[in-house]
Every structure is written in C-alpha cells, then in structure tokens.
C-alpha cells in the first residue's frame, strides 16, 4: 500500500519537498505545506521561465516601474504615468468561460489599481478553436460576455483586442486581458511592506473557499467526501464589489493613508502578504481569526490560500487605521486589521493569537529552485494541417474565403458587446487591426494602446514570429501616429518540460528581446502561462504583446475611409510570402520556417508612417497583416463602401515573388496608405519604399498581380467579412447573467 504524499498531490516534487524540509529544519505542517505548494508553483515562482525572462530589455528613460511590481508604468509627462499589464486566465476560462473571463478582467484591473492607478482601458486577446463546434460557440459566447460584463459594469472601457480561431486552441482557449491605468507619478504605491509595527488591513469581498482546488487534500477529516462541493474551484466575479474597491482605493490614496498596497490574486493572502514582506525585507504576522469570512467554518490553510476575488491588502500606519476602516465602510466594503508588519523576517500565521505556521519569508518567496530547460528544436511541423480551400480556387474565391476566415472576419459583434467609451477618453475605438487612442488631458496628449500576437506564425518560427508580433504592435501604434513607450507581454505556451516547447519558449523570448531592443521599447511587465496542453497536444506558442505609445494630438489619427479617386500606395519593405500565412493554413500546407525579418528597415517604415500621420499629411492608413495586400485593400473598401483598382506589378518585379505571394502573402513592414497622389509622393525619397499601386474607385475590389486577379464586388466582400456572427451565435442562450 502506498502512502499518499500530500506534497505530490499539491504539485511539489520530492526534491522540492526535501528542499523545503532542509530550509525549515523540519517538515512543514499542513498550513505551511499549502503555502509552499502555491508560492513554489509555476504560476507564482516562474520556475521554468524566470531565467529566460532576464534577457528582456527593461530599462528606458520613460520607465517608472518595471517588472517586479504589480504592473509596469511609463512616464507621460506633467507628473502622470501610465500603468499597464497583460495577464492570462486561460484555464479558468476553459472550465467556466463567463466567470473565467470575467475574473480574468477583474484580476488584471486589481494589479493596476494596486499601483494607485485608475484603470482607463481594457484590451483582450482571445484564442479559440475553429468556430464550427458547439464547444467553441459556448466558449466564445461566454468569454465575450464575461469580459463585457466585468469591464462594462466597472465603467472601464474595453477599447481593443483581437480574436483568433485555430484548431490547437480547441480544448485550451486563451483569454488574455490587458489593463491600462493612469496615476500621478509621485502618488504611485509600491507593493513593499515597510515599517515594523504597521498594520495589515484586508478589505473588499469576504473570504470564502473559492479556488482552493488542489489544496483541499489537506482538509482535516471534518469535511468528508460529500462536502467537496463546499470547495468551489470556480471563482465568481463581482464587478460591483470591485467598483467599490476601486473608488475606495482612490480615496485612500488621495488621503495618503497607505504605506503600501497589494492585490490578492493567485494564491490569495499567502502570495500577497508574502510578496509584500519579501519586497520590503520585513516579516509579517497574519491572524486568520481576524479575516472576515463568507463561511464560518474555514480552516487556517483554506483562509491562507483562498482565491476569493475582489480583495486588497494594505499596510497602514497604526494611527491611520481608523480612517482607513471608515473609508471602507463609506464604500460598503468589508475591512479588518488582520496582522502586522514585523522585523522578524518570518511570515507567521496565527489563529486567534496562536501560531499555526511559521516560514522564513525568503524561503517562501525566493526559495523555489529555478530550472534550466532542455530545449530541442523539433525536426518537423508538429501541428495538424487541414485543407479548407481547394488548391485550384480562383483568386477572387480565395479573397472571399480569406475575408470570411474567422480569424480575419469582422469582430464587430464581439467588440460591440463592450462599452468602449465610458470614461470619456476614447478618441478612436480599435477596429480589427489598429490601435485604440485615449485622450489624456492630464498631460495634454494622448496615448495609443494595442495588443497583438499570431500563434500560428510563432509556431512556424518562434523567433521570427515573435519579432513580427512586436513589430505589428508598433505598426498599429504608428497608424494612429503613436510612438512606443513600453511593452507588456503574456507568454502562453505548452509544457516547458517538453524539449520542443522549451525551445519555442526560449526562441520566442529571444525574439521579443531583440524586437524590443530594436524599437527601444522596454518591457515593463508581463505574465507567463505555461502548461497550455491537452491530450490533443500543446497550443500554438502564443506570445501576446501589448504596447502603450504616445501621440501629441488625439484628433490627428488616421483611420478615415478613402474617397473616390484617392491614390493608393504600398509603403515599407514588405516582402510577402505565403509561409505561415492564412492562405497556407487554409490550404492545409503549414510547415516550419518564416522568412527572416529585417527589423531596422521595418522600423524606418514605421517611423515614416508615424510622422506622416502626425503631420496630418496622411489620414488613411492600415498595416498589411493577415491575408496580405488583397485583404487589406478589401477591408479598406468595405469600410468606405468604395472599391479600388490596384496593380501589384511593381511589387512582383522588385521583390521577386509570385502573383499569389503578392496578393495574399504576409510578413511585417507593409502599410497601405491612401490620399492625394502628390501627398503620397512626398513620402518618397526618404529611404523607405513608397509605390503608388492604384486608385480608390467604383464598387469592385480589383487587385491584379500578373496573371492572377481578384475581382469582387464591395458588397460581396462585406458579406464575407461580416459572416462570422451568424456562424457563431446560433446556439447561445446567454443565461450567464
């Protein structure tokens, strides 16, 4: 008979358990073991990624807070900073899409609120399987409603995002949410606990058994089998509570009542109190008997690891405690002093005054071993292929199929479920491709925000693919005249203990580092989500890049529809290829490898476009991305209701590519600009390729590349582009709220 080993059930290896015993000089008790198991988990300790993340450039003149804080922050002048971070909530959303997505938004908002910032925008980056299964319909519906529910109810606009549909995400969808907030730079709070004798105040929702999950193996015999239902693993979001929490935090901040502030996320009190103490080099005492509970009979370990949502932890000087509690009462939110900062360097758990656990802060927070990966490049393409476009389809049929492809088709049906204007800052709601613009009158300018990632291309080549995603993000900012200030990212990968995934992760981070260096855009924060695998295999490696940029004038952003007679130009060192493209996917021909990206010429094109938009010379711009030039032109035609006639002969000649490459090929560094021909020509002669390729006119999209020609009615194109909603809606009843 084998002895059940609780540490194994909790996800710790024998080696890690031995290390814990060694550090403590004894075996941990149940409370301590629960705490270790969480802080030494991948999620909290980054044990498989931390070494790699050290390669990212994190410094720059505008950085106010970098990795290590709850969110990153960059200076936008006049005493204000923009705080932002992206985070994943993939597994919870796979289990319960509505609540998973909602609490994902709630969690990332709290990270930004914890800096003392007021959130001003949300973006979401979503990945699902192909939209032809009941499961995908259910996930899409729940996730989109969940994000809307939380953001809308909180009064934070969701201004942009992206949604891709690819088979490897079928069982393991990705839900990444990014939050952007504004704060007075000198009022921003750090998470570090300071000052022995200061009080620890917990406020917000009551603590229940939410998210205890695996730790329930530690439950004493009092609760037997049938009581499992009492330990819900699904967390429920309560945006109303969070909205009160936000206003309360803002008032606490304005009255200068807190020494430090920290949100409670994964691993609840254990991680927030532990990390506060670690960052401050202090000790901390928490008495679980003082924690306001939703259910009376909770055990100490349950209270320490509970992941109940909508809670914050503050360190407060003793003489300010009454004022803090009074403000919490004003905002109708529960609050209590639950402990004290000490100079003991230990994290002590008490129950009504009696010690029930005691761990050295360093052992708990920084003691987890960091692992080296064993990367090995897979010899072949390891993901499935399937054919959805016949090999002999005409160029026009291909164009329509690409426009209707779920990853390219209009996502208006999703974004219209999000309040994109609350807060009165939204100058430009992000459409499918480019960036959102937010007015920042506080510093007399505007910011642009974008989020991008293309797992399929990263799967083809993790290094080049990640560079492309980063460049695309910068290109999206350029389209609205913005210059990157800082980068956040979420690395969604499979199991890093597998050599192939380890290789993807390492190469991807190298690509991110290289692109950010080239753009001089420091990485100020991020998140890593590993083990995104099911028996069907890992997801596509999916680094999601979020960027914040600034621009001088929110009224001067491109994004207008073109007019009859406007000239159309292709700008940039765009070198189209079908490798990793949407068309190659639809033909079932995906394979390894992407063409090498010449980063600096792309950067020059980005800068040229940015300046052209800023100067007001150009008002119609889009970057060429999924589906290539033909798709980009069709999308512009759809948005204006006016067709075009374009010839890609010059593209073919200069770049030595095939007609299909020219029409549908993808890659970084291409922009479509439109306007007066003389204005477009003014952009030439600055070292960046500028070629007039046609004219806006008529009711047809005509794009010719030697012997291949796309010729479709604008209304046909539009019908294809708007077709996703019908495909996705039909079996949804929307009973989630």
């Amino acid at each position: 008979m084998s002895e059940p080993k609780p540490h194994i059930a909790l996800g710790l290896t024998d080696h890690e358990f031995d290390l814990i015993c060694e550090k403590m000089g004894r075996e941990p008790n149940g409370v301590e073991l629960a705490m270790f198991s969480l802080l030494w988990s991948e999620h909290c300790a980054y044990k498989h990624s931390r070494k790699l993340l050290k390669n990212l450039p994190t410094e720059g003149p505008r950085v106010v807070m970098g990795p290590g804080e709850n969110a990153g922050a960059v200076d936008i002048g006049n005493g204000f900073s923009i705080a932002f971070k992206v985070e994943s909530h993939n597994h919870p959303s796979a289990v319960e899409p509505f609540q998973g997505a909602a609490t994902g938004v709630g969690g990332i908002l709290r990270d930004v609120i914890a800096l003392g910032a007021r959130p001003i925008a949300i973006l979401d980056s979503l990945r699902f399987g192909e939209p032809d299964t009941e499961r995908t319909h259910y996930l899409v519906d729940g996730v989109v409603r969940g994000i809307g529910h939380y953001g809308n109810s909180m009064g934070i606009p969701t201004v942009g995002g992206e949604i891709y549909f690819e088979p490897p995400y079928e069982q393991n969808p990705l839900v990444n949410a990014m939050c952007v907030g504004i704060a007075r730079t000198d009022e921003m709070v750090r998470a570090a606990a300071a000052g022995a004798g200061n009080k620890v105040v917990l406020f917000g929702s009551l603590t229940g058994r939410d998210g205890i999950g695996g730790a329930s193996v530690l439950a004493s015999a009092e609760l037997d089998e049938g009581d499992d239902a009492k330990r819900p693993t699904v967390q429920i979001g309560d945006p109303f509570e969070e909205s009160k929490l936000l206003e309360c935090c803002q008032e606490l901040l304005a009255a200068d009542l807190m020494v430090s502030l920290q949100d409670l996320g994964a691993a609840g009190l254990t991680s927030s109190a532990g990390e506060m103490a670690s960052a401050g080099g202090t000790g901390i005492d928490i008495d679980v008997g003082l924690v306001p509970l939703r259910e009376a009979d909770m055990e100490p370990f349950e209270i320490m690891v509970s992941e109940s949502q909508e809670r914050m932890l503050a360190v407060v000087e003793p003489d300010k405690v009454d004022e803090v509690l009074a403000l919490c009462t004003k905002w109708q939110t529960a609050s209590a002093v639950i402990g004290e900062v000490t100079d003991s360097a230990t994290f002590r758990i008490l129950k009504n005054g009696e010690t029930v656990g005691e761990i050295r802060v360093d052992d708990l927070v920084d003691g987890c071993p960091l692992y080296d990966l064993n990367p090995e490049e897979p010899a072949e393409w390891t993901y499935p292929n399937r054919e959805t476009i016949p090999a002999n389809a005409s160029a026009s049929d291909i164009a329509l199929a690409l426009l209707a492809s779920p990853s390219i088709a209009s996502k208006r049906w999703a974004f219209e479920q999000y309040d994109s204007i609350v807060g009165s800052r939204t100058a430009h709601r992000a459409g499918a491709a480019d960036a959102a613009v937010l007015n920042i009158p506080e510093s007399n300018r505007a910011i642009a925000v974008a989020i991008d990632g293309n797992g399929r291309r990263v799967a083809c080549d993790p290094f080049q693919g990640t560079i492309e995603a980063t460049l695309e993000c910068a290109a999206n900012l350029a389209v609205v005249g913005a210059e990157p200030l800082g980068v956040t990212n979420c690395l969604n990968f499979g199991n890093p203990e597998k050599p192939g995934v380890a290789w993807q992760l390492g190469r991807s981070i190298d690509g991110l580092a290289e692109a950010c260096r080239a753009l001089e855009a420091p990485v100020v924060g991020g998140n890593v989500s590993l083990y995104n695998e099911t028996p069907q295999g890992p997801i596509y490696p999916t680094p999601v890049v979020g960027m914040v940029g600034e621009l001088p004038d929110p009224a001067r952003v491109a994004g207008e529809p073109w007019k009859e007679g406007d000239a159309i130009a292709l700008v940039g060192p765009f070198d189209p290829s079908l490798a990793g493209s949407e068309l190659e996917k639809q033909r079932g021909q995906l394979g390894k490898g992407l063409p090498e990206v010449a980063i600096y010429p792309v950067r020059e094109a980005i800068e040229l476009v940015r300046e052209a938009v800023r100067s007001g010379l150009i008002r119609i711009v889009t970057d060429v991305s999924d589906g290539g030039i033909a798709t980009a032109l069709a999308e512009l035609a759809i948005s204006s209701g006016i067709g075009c006639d374009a010839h890609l002969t010059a593209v073919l000649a200069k770049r030595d590519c095939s007609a299909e490459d020219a029409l549908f090929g993808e890659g970084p560094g291409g922009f479509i600009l439109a306007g007066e021909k003389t204005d477009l020509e003014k952009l030439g002669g600055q070292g960046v390729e500028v070629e007039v390729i046609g004219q806006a006119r008529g009711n047809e999209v005509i794009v010719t590349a030697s012997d291949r020609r796309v010729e479709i009615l604008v209304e046909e194109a539009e019908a294809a582009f708007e077709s996703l909603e019908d495909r996705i809606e039909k079996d949804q009843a929307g009973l989630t709220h």
Partner: protein
Amino acid sequence: MIQARVLIRPKEGILDAQGKAVEGALPALGFSGIEHVRIGRIVELSASDTDQLDELCQKLLANPLIEDYEIETISG
C-alpha cells in the same frame, strides 16, 4: 423568522428576451418538443414577518409594471 421563496416572472404578454433566446438555442443543441420557455427570478430569504415580505416584494423585488410575483413560505 419565516423562510420564504419569492418567484418573480415577466408579466404575460411581455416579450421575455431570455426565454426566447433559450427557445432559439434549443434546436441547434438537439432538443425538440420544448416550448413556452419563460425565465424569471427566484429570491429566497428569511424575513421577520409576512407583512414585511409583501412590502419588500411590491417595493423592491418585483416591478409591478413588468413582473408578477408569488410568495411561497417554506416554514414559519
């Protein structure tokens, strides 16, 4: 204390959007023969007396313009 259960339903004749959405979703999910779906709210609570409960329903739990309510007391 009394334990009560208040059932609140959309008034007859008013389009019940949620009920309709559920009906609409049924065929795609393979359900047949299900009709007249109406969706309402159930509020369970303990109250000190029945008068108070009635007032609570009229003033807060239901909007008489659009909803009917029914009180079931479970125990007294």
